[in-house]
């Protein structure tokens, strides 16, 4: 009995192995055909979208809503879409960058070569989006990324006016948008000096602020009190804090990595530096950070590029931002994050562009259509032809402040909409420390 079972096993194993070998052989034949024909890749009735995001590692907070978004999109697109005069189904292939740029490049190559996707989308800081965009640009693969300041995405990848990118595109904010978001809040504060304390470390993001936002601040009449180019991971901020205190700066801004902000903000409280208004970037994006900081989170202001309170609707099925956030909360038990709307929009962009082209398998046509796309959806209007460089759509953030919420321990209240007057306010601007 036993022997027979084992015999059967061996035979079935052989059978499966044979099938597997045939499948592998077949797929390599297929890919050889694809290589010859050049434009067509996977089966023409299915359109494949590859998603690269940091699902594990230090950046994983950015990807915490990805699984939910992929499911939501898949069920919304169950009936397929009409693209190039034909009904086609949409398949989504998800890859984990493990928060590493090297790994991001590797999985993008896999998506292009083995999964034979038709478009690659990606999100979550320059460490993910830049290598993915570079790989797509090199392989002639249409690509959209988000949650990366456009200066870091464009100049950081060697872009120059006149030397733009053909296949990669993005939507997010830039330094001008941070200025448009932060300055009106500073103006509204009753402060005695125009000194602004700036905690900017020595990394790509913060240097973009130092070189971009710094001069804009000076031009608007503010004096930058730069705490100095410290290294990420610094555990003691007493020198910065005493410099800020000496300068009498009542306004504060920063672009540190999240754990460093937690250390800095507590030490500043210990050492008695209490700015009238703190407007922070890159940190306090996620409710978990506000929870970790506890009471000290109260009235810290940040840029809000997506919120369920914005009157936006999905271009796919009309779902409102509020419905998306509620659905996310009921399915995952977690509070919404700004990344939820952005990742959703990545797929909207893909669907919009597939609907516009005559042949969605023609990479050049898709890439050209991406550069000309102008649609309104979950992230409001995204115009890829109207940005500071070709293929960049700019979002207009509002100012928000963290306060104890009704449904969740900490919530973002929209307190300033000078940069985007169409968005409703949900609270008053209050001093961080009064």
């Amino acid at each position: 009995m036993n022997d027979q079972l084992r015999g059967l096993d061996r035979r079935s194993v052989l059978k499966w192995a044979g099938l597997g070998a045939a499948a592998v052989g077949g797929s390599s034949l297929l890919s050889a055909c694809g290589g010859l024909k050049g434009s067509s890749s996977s089966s023409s009735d299915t359109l494949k979208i590859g998603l690269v995001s940091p699902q594990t590692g230090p950046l994983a907070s950015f990807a915490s809503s990805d699984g939910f978004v992929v499911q939501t999109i898949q069920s919304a697109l169950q009936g397929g879409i009409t693209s190039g005069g034909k009904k086609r189904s949409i398949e989504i292939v998800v890859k984990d960058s493990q928060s590493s740029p090297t790994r991001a490049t590797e999985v993008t190559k896999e998506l292009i070569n083995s999964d034979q996707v038709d478009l690659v989308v990606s999100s979550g800081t320059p460490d993910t989006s830049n290598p993915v965009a570079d790989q797509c640009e090199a392989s002639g693969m249409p690509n959209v990324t988000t949650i990366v300041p456009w200066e870091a995405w464009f100049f950081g990848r060697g872009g120059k006016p006149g030397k733009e990118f053909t296949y990669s595109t993005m939507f997010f904010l830039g330094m001008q948008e941070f200025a448009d978001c932060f300055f009106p809040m500073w103006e509204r504060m009753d402060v005695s000096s125009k000194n602004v304390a700036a905690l900017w470390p020595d990394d790509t993001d913060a240097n973009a602020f130092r070189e971009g936002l710094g001069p804009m601040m000076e031009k608007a009449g503010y004096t930058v009190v730069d705490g100095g180019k410290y290294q990420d991971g610094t555990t003691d901020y007493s020198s910065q804090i005493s410099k800020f205190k000496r300068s009498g700066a009542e306004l504060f801004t920063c672009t540190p990595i999240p754990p460093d902000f937690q250390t800095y903000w507590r030490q500043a409280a210990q050492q008695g530096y209490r700015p009238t208004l703190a407007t922070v970037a890159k940190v306090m994006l996620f409710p978990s950070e506000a929870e970790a900081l506890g009471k000290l989170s109260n009235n810290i202001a940040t840029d809000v590029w997506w919120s369920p309170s914005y009157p936006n609707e999905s271009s796919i099925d009309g779902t409102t931002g509020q419905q998306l956030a509620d659905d996310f909360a009921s399915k995952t038990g977690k509070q919404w994050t700004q990344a939820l709307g952005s990742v959703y929009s990545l797929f909207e962009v893909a669907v919009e562009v597939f609907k516009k082209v005559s042949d969605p398998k023609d990479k050049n046509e898709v890439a050209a259509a991406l550069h000309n796309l102008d649609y309104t959806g979950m992230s409001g209007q995204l115009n890829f032809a109207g940005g500071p460089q070709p293929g960049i759509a700019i979002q207009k953030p509002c100012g928000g402040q963290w306060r104890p919420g009704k449904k969740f321990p900490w919530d973002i209240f929209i307190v300033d909409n000078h940069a985007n007057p169409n968005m409703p306010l949900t609270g008053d601007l209050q001093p961080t420390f009064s």
Partner: protein
Amino acid sequence: MGLLNAVVQGVLLGGLYALYAAGLSLMFGVMRIVNLAHGDLGVVAAYVALVLVTHTFLPVWAAVVVTVLLSAVAGYLLQRLLLQRSLSSGPLATLLVTFGLSVILQNVLQELFSADTRSLDTGTFATAAIHLGEISVSYLGLLGLGLALATIVGVQLYLSRTATGRMMRAASDDPEVATLVGADARHVYAVATSIALASVALAGMVFAMRSSFSPTIGSMSLIFAFEAVVIGGLGSLWGTLLGGLGLGLAQSIVGYYDPADSILAGHLLFLAVLALRPQGILAARGT
């Protein structure tokens, strides 16, 4: 005045580094194990404390005590069940085992708790400080320094005054001879690991109170702890205390003049010690 403040902050920071490094130093001194999972074990302790605080009625201080005890037990088992087996295969094996342990711990934590930033909330204690003119001495900094001193003095007393402590030193010098005269090297080693884990648990929790933690943050503290051990002298606990303080002072004093070079100053001190006095400030006796 600003410089004096930098010195004070440097000493407080150095205390935390020394607390982190004490366990690393002890494990190296007794068993010649370089524990690459040391920082991650501190992070695990922080998560355990967080779970205790959020899911039981224990106040933070009680959760800290329970976590230290749990860590001590975990340390004993870790040595007996895992590290002891690799010890006989030479130093490279233990290095690889602890490296593997570090990778596993980080991923398990991420699976259980996600990559979200957490913190041990101690309410007003976290931001309270004694203000002396321009100098502010934070309660948390004092706590870290105090625990570092208590741990190192306590372990030194244990090593010199108790039978197990003396056996530990004997087993450290020559495990075979120590076994011949009746010491159970495996038990002694496990006790040492147990103490090491209890101390790194304390360090991890103090760190979680003064900053925040997430599954992958342990390796950052490992670097500073390792530097403190080497600067102070391998295998010497008093040296480790001095190494931690030296590292903290170098970072904060240089940071006072130029924040850009603060971390670099610590690394340079480490390199200078390696180049000029490789045995460290206080070398262990007999080596």
